[in-house]
């Protein structure tokens, strides 16, 4: 793809992104309508068929599948995501209300995961088998092997219940952000660490690094200048990928554990109530985030890679 000019590169990415987004929308729509019956779910257990049918009609769910599909997509291209079945408000409003909390949480977590993971990765990769390397490696493998919700619960028990240092959950002050962001940062930072560590390790074994070392250049300089530049591509793409991973589910599990008012918690509620318009809007918005992030990562990769090659 490197031979493409920048505008055509961007256009190609945009086209691919839209195709993916369209497919996501189709899948979520079809799955939702095949599996669920929101009207039955909304009615009391002993409601008669007639009462359920009445509610189904009020919700517009008694139209044929094709009809619903066509009207949904027709509205969608006009930016109308439909009304929430339960809240009687536009689904998009519901999702956009919850979005800032998710963006705040994931960006803070990403910064810490990226900085922490990369720094430790370079230091550990430069000195394989050192105490630092072993300790960091052990911790990152541990972090990667525990389920993320479990790590969240562990933090809550230690820092909120036992030590009473932080609030258990919710979003009432900046302190509320510490634990969920840490839980996310630890898990994603662990993977950044692993990848940066092995990239550094590989770079260190390359002739130029050996030469630099044999010339007696201080390690600080080798790491800070040469190695950093050559592992930057790995770092950036890894961090970008971790963001995709967060927005693809990890952040949502953490949101539920910490009662964080973002779109993860919203999706869980919408799914359990089969509020399709909200669920669809949330998935599409999250999908758009993933696609845009991917695009940015690709763009950065392209730019950096070209520059690295040129250098």
């Amino acid at each position, binding site marked *: 793809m490197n031979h493409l000019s920048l505008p055509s590169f961007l256009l190609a990415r945009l086209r691919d992104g839209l195709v993916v987004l369209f497919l996501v929308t189709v899948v979520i729509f079809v799955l939702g309508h095949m599996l669920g019956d929101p009207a039955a779910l909304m009615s009391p257990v002993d409601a*008669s068929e007639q009462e359920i049918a009445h509610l189904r009609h*009020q919700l517009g769910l008694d139209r044929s599948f094709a009809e619903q599909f066509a009207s949904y997509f027709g509205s969608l291209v006009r930016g109308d995501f439909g009304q929430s079945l339960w809240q009687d408000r536009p689904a998009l409003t519901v999702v956009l209300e*919850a979005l800032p909390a998710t963006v705040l949480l994931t960006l803070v977590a990403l910064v810490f995961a990226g900085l922490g993971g990369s720094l430790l990765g370079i230091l550990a990769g430069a000195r394989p088998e050192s105490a630092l390397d072993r300790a960091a490696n052990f911790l990152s493998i541990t972090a990667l092997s525990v389920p993320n919700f479990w790590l969240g619960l562990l933090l809550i028990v230690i820092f*909120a219940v036992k030590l*009473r240092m932080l609030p258990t*959950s919710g979003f009432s002050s900046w302190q509320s952000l510490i634990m969920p962001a840490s839980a996310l940062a630890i898990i994603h930072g662990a993977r950044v660490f692993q990848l940066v560590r092995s990239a550094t390790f590989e770079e260190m074994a390359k002739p130029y690094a050996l030469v630099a070392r044999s010339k007696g250049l201080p390690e600080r300089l080798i790491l800070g200048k040469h190695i950093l530049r050559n592992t930057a591509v790995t770092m950036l793409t890894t961090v970008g990928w971790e963001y995709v991973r967060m927005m693809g589910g990890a952040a949502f599990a953490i949101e539920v554990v910490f009662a964080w008012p973002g779109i993860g918690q919203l999706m869980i509620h919408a799914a359990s109530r089969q509020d399709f318009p909200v669920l669809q809007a949330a998935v599409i918005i999250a999908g758009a985030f993933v696609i845009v992030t991917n695009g940015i990562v690709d763009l950065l990769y392209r730019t950096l890679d070209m520059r690295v090659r040129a250098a």
Partner: protein
Amino acid sequence: MRTSLIKNLALLSAGVFFLLGAAAKPSKLVVIAVSTEPSTLDGQAVIDRNSRVASGNIFESLLDRGANGEVIPLLAESYKNLNDATWRFTLRKNVKFHNGEPFNAEAAAFSVNRITDKAYKTQRASYIQKIKGAKAVDDYTVDVMTDGINAVLPVQMTQLVMVPPVAAKDKSFGVTPVGTGPYKFVRWDRGREIVLAVNKNYWREKPSIKEFSVRVIPDPQTQLSALQAGEIDLVLDLLPEQAKLAPKFISVPATEFSYIQFNAHKKELADPRVRVALNLAVDKATLAKALYQGHGKPMDAQHLSKGMLGYNVRLKPYPYDPKQARQLLKEAGYADGFELVLNAPIGRYLKGEETSEFVAAQLKEVGIKVKVQLHEWNAYRKLGRIPGTEANAFDLKYGWNSNEWFDASRIVSHITCKGTSSKLCDKRIDELMAQGIRTLDQNARDRYYQEVWAILNKSPHAIYLLQQNLIYGLAQRLDWQPRLDDEVNVAATRVSE
């Protein structure tokens, strides 16, 4: 050097203590946790318990439940039955809605007509069956019209909340609710909390708690942690294994009855002796102890508990008697047993999957091979509605039956020949159930329903399992009592500081 180290340590620990103190200070606000955020606070639209924690303290109905579950006046001073299809309510005077609108006959009639309007979207449709509408007679008298005789109208009126005619016409009523209750709506931070403050003009005794918040915490483990950390005061549904970890807990029998319904149209299950045998084969007491840690007890072979209308005091849980069960099966010609499929929903009822497996294992002991089949909720519901005479109808179905009406008529769909969920047909039961809903004399109704349960005791419609408990987790400072109808009444709650 040494002194400065000590000094630094002292400073550091002071700083830490300051931080700890700041974070651990108990919130002045009383906080109640719910696991899902309400979709609307319009008290006429929703039924789920999580919504009612907020809306139940904002709105009031004409009638209410007393301490023993009896129907008592609330916004009505009195009521009487005028004729078969009309009930007359005399209203309390000097009651105002939070926004200043007067509560009068016009408002009461509006409220009834709003919820019964076909165009109005409500989950409460089956709660307002047979109510046709209402009209104001004078300023403080309102008539409610029913579709023929409706013996449960007073019960229905305990749940039909009053709304102000002007404010309720606004589209935003569900997010800015207005009622006559002890608390008024303050704000709703989506995904976080709903805040309510005391209604200074409340017509009854003013509550002692000035303000409270309903906070959304989806994860049960996090709810418990927040309770332990002193951040919240009340958790609605603790798990049995969590109860002892809470600062305080209250476990009360709920109006929820778990059972395994028979398809009495199926060849082997058509014989009443077989259905009695299956009841004898299950050790309900051990089920309550092992799976629910005692937070539940064997029900008295009826989906009712003492004090509810139609409760038959002579009936006791079937004893656990596998020997007698085998004997009955032998008499019925099934000495070698047979095979059945037990259907249960996934993730719907607390420990429903485990209970199904437990029962299957117990039935195996008397020679009946039971395969447990799990279904997604909607599929499970559809299955439940297939008539028992059809080939794809279920054999056995696990479920819970709730009876927030405290009235045996609530079971009608399960045991009458044409009931939507029924897999049993007995002409006498049909007669008695029909009489029960057509008779206004509550004592006579009580007798009809008692007879129904007596018939079912010889020819059961289900394996009667447990009356389930609700387990509330409380902060040490909270002085709160659950109500029989599971409503969370904050007005009667106190906090010791």
